């Protein structure tokens, strides 16, 4: 199959990748760019393990063709914090045991990151609704919700202190 050129920015870095028209964005990220943070859980856009941020929106990378990412600005879990450090959300997941096996975690955190941009002061219900596209088989969601609520509180108090 003829390959097509895809130009995209991932975590602030510009890339040009050759992709088959049928290739999914998640495979481009994981196989061509070696970004294995976003996982493949179901490959049918149910589970959200492959969640990334594309042009300011949460997107399941297994629902998007690589070619559709032409010109897109993408952030993956790898781009959310400096290597070796944890951002507020990541630290909060660690602190409140928002993960067990960790497979869904990159998707959870990437989605939660966007959710808190969309709504910096969510209620528990907002969090549950906003995270509904991400499945977790370990935690029963209680601690994930707790982690995100705690991160929101911390981010807001940091913002207040800065003002």
């Amino acid at each position: 199959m003829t390959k097509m050129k895809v130009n995209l920015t991932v975590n602030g870095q510009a890339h040009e990748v050759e992709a088959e028209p049928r290739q999914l964005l998640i495979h481009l990220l994981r196989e061509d760019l070696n970004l294995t943070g976003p996982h493949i859980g179901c490959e049918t856009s149910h589970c959200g393990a492959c969640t990334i941020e594309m042009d300011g929106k949460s997107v399941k990378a297994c629902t998007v063709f690589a070619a559709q990412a032409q010109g897109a600005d993408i952030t993956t879990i790898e781009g959310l914090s400096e290597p070796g450090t944890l951002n507020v959300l990541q630290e909060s997941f660690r602190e409140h045991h928002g993960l067990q096996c960790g497979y869904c975690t990159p998707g959870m955190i990437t989605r939660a990151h966007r959710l808190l941009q969309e709504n910096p002061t969510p209620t528990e219900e907002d969090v549950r609704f906003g995270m509904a596209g991400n499945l977790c088989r370990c935690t029963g969601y209680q601690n994930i919700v707790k982690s995100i609520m705690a991160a929101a509180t911390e981010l807001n108090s940091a913002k207040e202190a800065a003002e």
Partner: protein
Amino acid sequence: MNDLSPDRAERSAKLKGLGHSRKRVEDQRFTQGRGNYIDDMKMPDMLFGRWQLYRRHENA
């Protein structure tokens, strides 16, 4: 947590490490997307394959 339970930090200080949850070491890499699961590994000349195995008898 009910109203009777003491402040978390206060309790931790008193217990000196006993009886309360600890942060997991592995969460550091899991939360950064560096879990390195089998599907994340890449070896030179690696092939992907899938086997479908069926039992000849149920519950055998």
